[in-house]
């Protein structure tokens, strides 16, 4: 099996897939990093000569004065005060991005569409390209069962997803560290918001270090990409052409983004996989598209979709006549 997976990886490398993905990431990263740098410059200009330390200090004092009358918001205020105090203590300007905070923003924005898209480049023709090249006839007439062939391809896909996420993390770190400096890894980030009964519940809010937050983000991004990759993998088996598979998958992703803004009153839409791809929103505390959706719920829905896609893939692939 290891040998078969090695074969699949060799073919992916031969097709220069990872090189293409790497180049796409670098180009996009450079664009975003440049835009970010311009923006923070503009902010600095607008604010003039005011020292950010004085401003933070003022905000803290302001909040401390309100603590006594804050009531139920007291806890949240305390957390925010802690956060600002940290910035002051460690001499971190919150409006001046370091590598980690740039990576955080970039990952948050790319996890839903950009990363799955990159994974699709690999996944969508893992099987259909063998068919269009005709090599599937050799692949399936060797003394290896069809399910073993398909399993090796799927393992190769899981590896590819990991490689893509790793490449993404590495490249975004390198570029942003180069442009914004390498500081702020332990800066605190607010997380743990929950939406209950239509209201933001801040009782679970806590501070985590930026590197912890990033790690969680990459984990979720990996999972989202794996789900999209698995679904593309299935389409790659069901459809003869890679282009048709790619188109279908893209339509799903985009409709997911649109639906998320529209389905708040269509309750059963929460079982659609594309509405559940916004895992990042649970971390940053944006309200979910449909009331009652939680991180656990979305993870379960996605896992079920993934399992179904895999089952369908194996069922079809092992029985199909190859013409």
């Amino acid at each position, binding site marked *: 099996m290891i040998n078969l997976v090695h074969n699949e990886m060799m*073919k992916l490398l031969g*097709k220069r897939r990872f090189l293409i993905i790497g180049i796409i990431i670098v180009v996009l990263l450079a664009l975003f990093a440049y835009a970010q740098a311009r923006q923070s410059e503009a902010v600095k200009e607008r604010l003039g000569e005011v020292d950010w330390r004085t401003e933070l200090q003022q905000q803290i004092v302001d909040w401390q004065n309100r603590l006594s009358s804050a009531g139920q918001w007291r806890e949240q205020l305390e957390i925010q005060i802690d956060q600002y105090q940290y910035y002051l203590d460690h001499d971190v300007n919150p409006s001046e991005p370091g590598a980690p905070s740039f990576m955080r923003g970039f990952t948050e924005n790319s996890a839903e569409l950009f990363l799955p898209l990159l994974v699709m480049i690999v996944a969508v023709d893992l099987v259909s390209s063998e068919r269009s090249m*005709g090599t599937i006839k050799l692949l399936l*007439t*060797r003394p290896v069962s069809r399910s073993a062939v398909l399993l090796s391809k799927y393992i190769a896909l899981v590896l590819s997803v990991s490689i893509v996420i790793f490449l993404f993390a590495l490249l975004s770190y390198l570029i942003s560290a180069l442009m914004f400096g390498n500081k702020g890894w332990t800066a605190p980030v607010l997380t743990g918001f929950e939406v209950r009964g239509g209201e933001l519940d801040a009782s679970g809010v806590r501070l985590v270090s930026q590197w912890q937050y990033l790690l969680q983000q990459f984990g979720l991004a990996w999972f989202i990409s794996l789900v999209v990759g698995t679904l593309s993998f299935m389409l790659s088996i069901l459809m003869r052409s890679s282009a048709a598979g790619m188109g279908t998958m893209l339509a799903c992703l985009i409709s997911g983004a649109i639906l998320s803004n529209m389905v708040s009153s269509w309750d059963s839409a929460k079982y659609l996989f594309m509405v559940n791809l916004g895992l990042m929103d649970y971390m940053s505390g944006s309200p979910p598209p449909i009331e009652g959706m939680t991180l656990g719920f979305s993870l379960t829905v996605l896992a079920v979709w993934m399992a179904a896609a895999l089952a369908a893939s194996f069922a079809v692939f092992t029985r199909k*006549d190859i013409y």
Partner: protein
Amino acid sequence: MSDVTLSVRGLRKVIGRRVIIKDLSFELTRGEVFGFLGPNGAGKTTTIRMLVGLIKPTAGTIRICGLDIARQFTKAMSRMGCIVENPELYPFLSGMDNLRHFAVMLRGITRERIDEVVRLVGLEERIGDKVGTYSLGMRQRLGIAQALLGKPDVLILDEPTNGLDPSGIREMRAFIRSLAEKEGLTVLVSSHLLHEIQLMCDRVAIMAKGEIIRVDTVQELLASEERMVWRLRPLPLGRLILSDLTEVLSADEVTVTTVYSERHAGEWSRRLIEAGVSVMEMNRKLPALEDLFLELTGGESID
């Protein structure tokens, strides 16, 4: 173990309501080159795809060296090598990487074995190049190398000379013959060219509309269908004499066509000359595939 390497019994394929392949049965033995002859659409490729496990038969069994491919797929496949239609390999990998790729899928293929098959098909010089840069002939040879990697007992080649130039075709024929004669392989080849099959095969099965209409040795098959074309002067007298001796099948203004007989041809020409007829030309004519079909199917056309 018996000499039968490939045995097919009651093979049948139904798609929807259409019966594509109708109850094929045949057996191939060690060291034999067996031809599958039929026009396009006769069901050759479907049959071959069932033999190599790409298509599941609706009914019937296929055994390779006694191993049923439906039950013992991997064991049966390790005894067989094949090229189905074109030798499609990965164009973005080198010839060597392609061979390694398929060697991994077999068990216990050593580096030496890979080098051996590369030498066998004469690709030593270009084996490091990307397959995308190969000519069709080279790809065909690489395909054969790949099929031979696992030292199969049965080699199945679908239209092996398709797209090759004349010298390539001759080489391929000689190569296939030598595999059968020297290595004792059973080779099954398909073709839509009678000429091709005639030069390469020991036995041939003629397929039309999903059925095998005849299985015979090449000699037998051709002997019964061969013709002799005579150009004689004067023609009417020649024709009269010939019709006394044998059956005249057809005649036009220039020639007379009779059946061919190895035994009687000399005798017939002597009789013609004795009667004062000049024999300008005696031409032994192989039947065209079309004629053979018309003959065998009783006038049913190919299409």
